Every structure is written in C-alpha cells, then in structure tokens.
C-alpha cells in the first residue's frame, strides 16, 4: 500500500462530467462543441462506461468489436478537446457542496472544481439474493457480457436467468464464445404476444433485434423458460448446479441443471448516490423501487448547477442515455449564454420523447422490479446469505425487522451489520428494503461516503495544512 500524503491535485473546468459511458461521452462532446472547457472523469482505465466498455486493441482485433459505435463516439470525444481523466474514482463531494473529491490511479487525492456538474454515473445490476449466490461461478449477466467481449469462454455450461431484455444478448454472447447455454429463465412472461407487446410494433427495429436473438437461441437449442427464476445455486467451492422454479408458484420445480457458470440479474439500478451527495432532491420510483433524482426533462436537478443524465437518471438504455447527455449539455450551454441552434435543441427534445415512449413500452413487457424483488425476497429460505459481504442470513434479518417497537432499514442494518461490508449494500440493498415489513421510518439505504472504499491516505491531503498549501 502506498502511503502518499501529498496535497491534492486541483483541476478546474467550466463543466465536469462524471462517468464516461454513453451519456457522459455525449454530454462532454456537446459541451466541448459548444466551446466549454470540459473535464470527463471515469473510474475505469478507458472511457466507454459499461455499455461501450472496451478491452485493449489487441483483444478487439481477435475477439471482435461488438459495439463499434462506441469507438466512434470515444474518438470524437478525444478529438473535441475534452480533458479525459480515466482511472479517477470520484468518492465524494467537499463541504462546499460544489467540489468533487476523487483519487487518481496512483492514490493521489484530486479535487475538481467546475461551474457545472453532470453526473453520468450509470447503473449497475439489480441483484436479488438466493441461496448459493455467493458461490464462485455465480455472476451477473453484465459480467458474462464483459468477459465474453474480452474473448473469454467463461465456462462449459450455463443458465442465464433473471428478468429483462438484457438476458437474451448475454445468452447469445456466451454461445458465441462456445459456452453451452442450457436455459434462459425469465421471471416474467414478456415473450408471449399480448397487448403490451403490440406496442413494440411501433419500434420495428427493436422487434427485429429481439427476433434475431431468439433465432440464435433457437438455433442452438436453448430453451427459454418464462415465469421461471433461479431458486438455488448448489455447489461446494464453485457452483455445480441450479434449481429453477416457477416464479408464480415457487414450490414447483421447473428444472435442475448442472452448470459451471450461472448468470442471474434483474435489470439495472441507477447509480444515483453522487447526486444525493450534492443534496439533490430524490424520490422513489414506484415501479422499480429505486431512488432517483427529481429532474427536469433535460436533466437539471433541484441543485441548479447539477445535472443527472443517462442511466443514473433512471434506467432507459444506451440510446436514451446519449439523448439525455446531449439534452443536458444543450441546456447548460443555453444557461451560460451559448445558445445552441434552436433546431438542434428541438431535435434533441423530440428524440428524447420518442425514446421515452419506447422505454415505457419495453419495461411494460417485464415485471416491475419493485414487485419482483418483494416477491423473490419473501420466498427466501432462512439460511440465504442476503448480505454477501457480512454474511447475514434472511432469518437474522427477518428477526431484526420484527424488533419490539418497530424497525426500519437503517435499524435492520445496525442490528445485523447487513449492508455494512465492502459493497455498502449495493448488492443486497433492494432485498434489505424489501425484507422490511413496511411501516414508518426510513425505507431505503441512503448514499454513503466514500462512494467506494478509499485509501486513508487519499483523505489526508484534504486536512487543514494541505488546504493552506493548495
């Protein structure tokens, strides 16, 4: 461990964009085009976020580039004059509620001061615990996607399970790497023709995409089970098999498959803790159960100089993320007197509205995440490790939730240590919130500082003496 205690590196810019995924890249590009001095920060070694995440060029040459449009956007950002700070983890906001606090790849503290902040911190996968989910070999579909894109054959046999449209391309990516996908299990019934599904007809390209995934899965003999969830992963040191049950009738076993990799995920959750640290007004999305910032249509939060764009504003997919990034940038440019072309702004608004309709239609196909998490958590056997960091079982949590006099989410955490480990409840959070039986008090896990575990040395630079030096 390095023990540097030097003063922080200070960066100033007119606009700082946090997160170099589709939304952050689009926002940074538009802001730079408008003539602003822009800093773009990301904790990954390369820009792209999760959606446009790119391995090294030598891997792309051999494994192929499955999202070449990402490379295009990234190179335009690089050419636009945006200052790119990769490997920088933003962990908090200073006491002035304006300055971003980060740490660079060497562990040196970093301060970023900007007139405008664009939080494009993306999303991460919504996990719902089940017995055995902590076994090596049990992964999120996102991990399977990334590893496949890096050319890794993750295992020999797998089941891809959870809910949402993302499961299909992940299953296809695994197939492409030579992994045998024995089943795809979707908790809902999105793939039966129905009233909701018909709406997708207005977006034929989307239907074509879904159909092509289906065709590939069928060609490989992959069974797509609907109304089906993983009830348990079995194994000693590594996952060996998975039991699938009916979501609507958890007592009914659908299948038990031998696997060496199991991919389970229930869609994505906005990573909205940075806006919370800025003091932005937040609300609970009743459909997803997620905490999201209250925003104007162009992404301005209740704190006027803070915008939230992309998946952090509410999960809606990469095209929407790009549109949101652009819309926020245009609004910022207007706000600093660099009025963009009226037609540009109008086109951005129309594009956003169209994408929003599409997002609503797509999500209507799948069960509401809030309902899913509640139902799945209710069925959890008592021995399930709900908090995988601190190894807290469902039994322990249920007991804490029924403490004499009443309880709420922070009380359950305090009583059991659930959510107090390294991931700070990012994985077990939805389940913790669902295990609470309702009633008064706090129903959500609040944002915590630092946003990632932070070397102690990275905060020493912010003590009084260092402040005077800088």
């Amino acid at each position, binding site marked *: *461990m390095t*023990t540097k*205690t030097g003063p922080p590196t200070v960066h100033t810019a007119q606009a700082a964009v946090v997160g170099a995924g589709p939304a952050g890249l689009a926002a940074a590009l538009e802001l730079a085009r408008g003539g602003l001095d822009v800093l773009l920060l990301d904790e990954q070694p390369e820009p792209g976020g999760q959606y446009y995440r790119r391995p090294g060029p030598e891997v792309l040459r051999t494994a192929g580039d499955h999202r070449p449009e990402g490379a295009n956007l990234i190179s335009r950002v690089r050419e636009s004059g945006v200052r790119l700070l990769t490997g920088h983890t933003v962990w*908090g*906001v*200073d*006491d002035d509620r304006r300055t971003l*606090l980060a740490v660079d790849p060497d562990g040196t503290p970093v301060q970023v001061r900007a007139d405008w902040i664009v939080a494009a911190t993306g999303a991460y996968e919504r996990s719902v615990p089940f017995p055995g989910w902590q076994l090596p070999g049990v992964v999120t579909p996102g991990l399977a996607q990334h590893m496949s894109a890096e050319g890794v054959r993750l295992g020999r046999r797998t089941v891809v399970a959870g809910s949402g449209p993302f499961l299909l391309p992940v299953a296809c990516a695994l197939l492409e790497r030579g992994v045998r996908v024995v089943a795809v299990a979707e908790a809902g019934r999105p793939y039966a023709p129905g009233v909701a599904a018909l709406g997708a007809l207005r977006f034929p390209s989307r239907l074509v995409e879904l159909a092509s995934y289906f065709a590939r899965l069928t060609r490989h003999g992959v069974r797509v089970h609907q109304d089906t969830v993983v009830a348990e992963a079995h194994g000693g040191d590594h996952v060996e098999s998975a039991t699938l049950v009916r979501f609507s009738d958890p007592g009914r076993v659908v299948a038990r498959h031998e696997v060496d990799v199991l991919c389970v995920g229930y869609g994505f959750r906005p990573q909205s803790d940075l806006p919370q640290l800025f003091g932005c007004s937040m609300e609970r999305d009743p459909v997803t159960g997620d905490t999201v910032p209250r925003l104007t249509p162009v992404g301005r939060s209740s704190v006027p100089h803070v915008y939230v764009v992309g998946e952090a504003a509410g999960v809606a997919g990469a095209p929407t993320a790009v549109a949101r990034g652009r819309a926020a940038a245009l609004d910022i440019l207007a706000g600093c007197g660099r009025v963009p072309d009226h037609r540009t702004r109008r086109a951005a608004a129309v594009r956003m509205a169209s994408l929003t309709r599409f997002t609503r239609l797509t999500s209507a196909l799948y069960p509401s995440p809030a309902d899913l998490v509640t139902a799945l958590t209710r069925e959890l056997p008592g021995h399930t490790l709900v908090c995988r960091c*601190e190894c807290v079982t469902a039994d322990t949590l249920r007991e804490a939730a029924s*403490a*004499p*006099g*009443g*309880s*709420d989410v*922070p*009380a359950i955490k*305090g*009583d059991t*240590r659930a959510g*107090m480990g*390294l991931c*700070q409840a990012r994985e077990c959070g939805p389940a913790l919130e669902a295990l609470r039986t309702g*009633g*008064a*008090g*706090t129903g959500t896990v*609040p944002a*915590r*500082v*630092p946003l990632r*575990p*932070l*070397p*102690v*040395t990275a*905060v*020493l*630079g*912010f*003590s*009084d*003496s*260092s*402040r005077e030096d800088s």
Partner: protein
Amino acid sequence: MNTFDAVVIGAGVLGAATAFELARTGMSVLVLERGAPNREGSGTTAGNLHIQAVHTRRPGQEVPLDSEGLLPAQKAADTLWAEAEHRLEADLEVRRNGGFMVAETPEQREELYTKHVWEQRAGLNTELLDGDTARAALPLLGPTVTAATWCPHDGYANPLKAAPAYLAAANRLGTRIKAFTPVTGLERRGSGWRVYTPDGHHDAPVVINTAGPWISEVCALAGVDLRMAPVAIQMHVTARERPVLHHLVQHIGEGLSVKQVTAGNLLVGGGWPALGMNLQGRSTASVESLAGNMAQATRVLPFLAGLRLLRMWAGPLAATPDEMPVIGPVPGQAGLYVAGGTYAFTFAPLWGETLSRMVRGEPTRIDVSSFAPDRLTATCGSTDRTTSAHTEKGTAPC
C-alpha cells in the same frame, strides 16, 4: 392500556437502560420513540467506555469538563458495564481491555500528570508512561507520542447492540415500546402526567425524558426551559482488519478516539463537528472533519494510513452549557426526570440504575447532586431562551 407506572421518552441507550431498570422492579413501563429506536445519538456514537479521566470532549468545545468531578461516575459505570452482558443475557461486544490516553506536546504532558493525580485521588487505577514505555506496551503508537496514561478499565461496547439489548430485555419484562410515536404534549394531571402522542395519550405518575437531541424540546412541552442544545459530530470507520488493536486509544489534548471493533473495523472518532445537523433526516458528515480526524489518527497510530476508509456518518449529541452530564428530577415538576449530556453511552447503565432508584426513593450508587438539572432549568419565558432548541409552538417537531 393507557396507564403505566412510568413513561420513558426516547429509545436511545439511556431510555432503554432506564426502561429495563424500572421494569426489573416490577413497574409497568411504556417507551415512546419519535423515530426508530437507537437511531440518533445512541446509534451513531463511538461506543467508548470512558473510565479514565478525560479533558477534551470534542474539537471546538468552549468549556473544559470538570474532569475530576466526573471520576466517581466513571468508576461506577465501569462496575456496571462489567456485569451488563450477564444481566441482559446478551452479547453487547463489551471489551474492557484497557486504554491509552496519549500526549504529544509539553502542555499535553502536563495535563496528563494533572489528571493522573486526580485519578489516584479518586482511587482509579491508572499508570503514567513516557513515550517509549507507551510504545513498548503498544508498538502501534507513533513517534510523536511523548507520554500516555494507561487505564486497564477503559473499553468499548457495540452501540448498535446495547440499546436494542436493553429494549429487548425490558420488553421481556413487559415493557411496551412504541417506535415512530412522537410525544406531542406533556400535561400535569393530578399528581401525575398525561403524555400525548398522535395515537392517543398515556397517563403515568412518572415521566422520564431521555430524548437526547430533543431533550429540551420535550422539557418545553412541560413548560420547562432546559438549557441544552444538540451538536452533531461524526465518526469514521475503515474496512475490516485482522485483530491488531485491542485497546481504546484517546488523546488528552485533541478530540481523538480509536479502537478496533469486534468485526475487525477500526473506528475513528473524537467528536469532530459534522457539516450539518438534520434532526428530521440524516446529519451530514464533513470532509474537513474527516481529513482532520484521520490526520491526527494516523499521526498517533501510523498503521491506520495503510487501511481503507469504508464509511463515515454523523449524528447529534445533547450538550449542556458546562459540558457535564445532567440527571435527576426536574425542579417544580414532580414525577418528571431527565438524563442526558456528556458520555451518555458510558453512563447509560449507571443513569438507568440511578433513575430507577430515584423514582423509588432509594439511595443512589453515587452522589449525583452536582449533575442535577436545576443548574440548567428555568420556567419557560423567564430566562433567555436563545440556547434552547425548542420550537415556538411548544411541540416537539417529531
């Protein structure tokens, strides 16, 4: 049932301990809590068991403690913490492994010598060490430490376990606990009190106000101006570490306390001021306090610089103008008692027992007359109210 022998307002560690002690004597007790039990001061505190004398309570504190005057209570608290787990039949993660209080400057060394004399006088066993001897005893101490006192009685307990265990034990003895139930009025009824809540009222001859940051607001409901004000401070915790530090480490001249909790995390505090107090939601921790606290912590215990900060949080404590605890009957308000102020966690078992004995007219374990609330009270309207935090409406904003 609407009538109880006692109503306790506030389900922090003081209220919980008091409810338990009252229930043990066969009294029927109701605990009313505006939010979740053990949430604010009690749930955000460090959990230190301060047995050796302390000088500075927190950075920016205007008045020094009457450290010598606090020693008898600290000694008594030590005795009670020794038996707390047994009495509650619960694991509170009590660790009474002793603690060091360090000094770096010549002035701080002088203060150590002075307080060591008080400790000898009070019959509290502490040992004065020079820097090298202290480092020999605790090699983790850094080179800037030039002296330390060692007290084998210092320790810590898990504040997330203590109040819930007291509440659970009280509950087993028949105590009713109503969380998320704010007290909206306190009214004299014959020789007792009527306590109003949004769900209805409860009558009891005895009302005990252990409302922590809301202690003055609850007093105001009875027309009493109690000069206390909440102050928000913050704590910092590292990721888990293998067991390396078995003692409490404090600083004589600066707000600093460090210990390793049972789970392995290092807890660093010392009363550094939070950025913002929010009694309706969550208080906000300050980055400047974080940096300042960690800078001194890594100076005194350099190994901390190799660890990772996992989380920080802030919470309120109830401060008295003289920085001393408050406990006892409210003058002119028969049946109304208060307890709170300095080191409420350390003193929780003692104040619980003391209140229970006061209520029943029995002699208390130690003389607490110097902590009596009369030094802080006046009838509402007759004194300057600027230091009190209660609302104009006279209702607690719970």
